[in-house]
């Protein structure tokens, strides 16, 4: 399917969802829920937050859906701006409450056996931990590109930056993460052997 027809298809779905069509609402939800979840997970490193916030974000999306306008920003960019704003709001609340627990057993890994599950948790902990140390813009690009699965163009729209700028930020972020992965850790050993 070409990007244009994909965009057209999404437009039909979004418009139907705005009119209250339940199947369109379901489709939107199922398309974006895992992506929003991963985005929040990438930003917070906390599954409890990711679970609660992802649900809340969809209620906010619903409340704002009537006001969404097809201008220049794609729907995905608009949706992830809502997600970002919700995240900021939640952080303000958390600052008052104090920090919550980090990655936990509630993580669900697709098609993973017990060993792979443990390995994956170690891996995502490392990625998350590393990502948390990045500067805000780099962390945001990583979360949107790899967590939410947005394209560079969509990421640029969501962040209000140019595509060239996003590519530069992405390059720097990956280089920095790679340096962190390169530091001696148990997981690195596994990864190097996989690579070999």
């Amino acid at each position, binding site marked *: 399917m070409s990007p244009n027809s994909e965009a057209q298809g999404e437009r039909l779905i979004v418009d139907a969802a705005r009119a209250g069509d339940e199947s369109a609402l379901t489709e939107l939800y199922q398309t974006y*829920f895992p992506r929003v979840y991963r985005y929040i997970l990438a930003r917070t490193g906390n599954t409890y937050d990711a679970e609660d916030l992802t649900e809340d974000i969809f209620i906010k999306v619903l409340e704002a859906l009537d*006001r969404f306008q097809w201008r220049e920003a794609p729907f995905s960019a608009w949706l992830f701006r809502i997600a970002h704003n919700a995240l900021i709001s939640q952080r303000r609340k958390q600052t008052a409450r104090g920090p919550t627990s980090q990655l936990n057993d509630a993580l669900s890994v697709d098609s993973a056996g017990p060993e792979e599950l443990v390995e994956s948790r170690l891996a995502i902990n490392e990625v998350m931990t590393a990502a948390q140390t990045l500067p805000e813009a780099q962390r945001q690009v990583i979360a949107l590109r790899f967590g939410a699965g947005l394209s560079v163009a969509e990421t640029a729209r969501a962040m209000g930056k140019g595509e060239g700028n996003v590519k530069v930020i992405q390059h720097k972020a990956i280089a920095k*993460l790679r340096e962190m992965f390169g530091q001696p850790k148990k997981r690195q050993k596994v990864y190097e052997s996989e690579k070999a």
Partner: protein
Amino acid sequence: MKVKKLEDILEECINAGVEGRRTVEQSLSLYPAYAEELEPLLRAALRISDEFHAYSPAPALQQRGLHRFLAAANDRHRVRQLTSGFERRGWLSGLLRTPGLAGMAAAAAVVVVTVAVAGGVMLSGGDNENGGASVVNPPATNSTDALAVLRTKVDATKDKALTGSITAQDPDLAEVQRLIEELRSQIERGTSPQGAEQMIAEIDALLQQIVIANPDLANDPVVMETEESTRNIANVLPGGATPAAATQPVTPTAVPATEPPTVAPTPAPTDPPTAAPTATPAPTATPAPTETADARGPQGLGD
């Protein structure tokens, strides 16, 4: 010929790798001059991508979220149906042509329904021989005062709604309705209060919460009977029937929906609902989503 920058090449190779179109080696062979620098970055990027995509929300969580999402959508749809029903009324069509008043009109309509449905008594007066809500408090002297009083009452009602302790017969709710009416009439007389738009949005949000707390409200058959009641309210509008007729206590169950109004006719029963498309609650009270993705206000995504 324009030389590709490393970040462009990296992006292209990431996409090719994530989409499964090329292996790392194939990408490196396309850019041999960059291979040494590109390889570690590309492998790191693909690793990050793989690890993120290995994680999905638990199916139960997703299902629970979907249920909540659809329930909220359904509630919103009911509210919309309810308010659009009132937008079609003749007495409202004139009001809806007043800029900025569409949301307020819809809000007023829902308050009336809320009070009438659960209470069975119109506004706060019920059988008050003095004419019900119109004499509960002395009217505010101007639109700014009216707005301030309205805000206080809305806040009080909102607090109750938030704690789930509001009832449709709540006097505060009736008072909100009375104040909306008062404000509307003042605006129609030519006063243009600042802050009315925001008030509309707040009242709209409040009413949605109330209707959501009473999900059966939108489909309740008594709603139909309250059509007559809304016409009675119309009679107190400037240009409508005499206030004395309008302030007679109305019991919705006593006036079947199919009967014509027992008081003076509606101000403009044949008016087309020209303003209906703009009558979505408070359309101008919040910025366009492309500029502000959250009703709270603009917050950029960048750093």
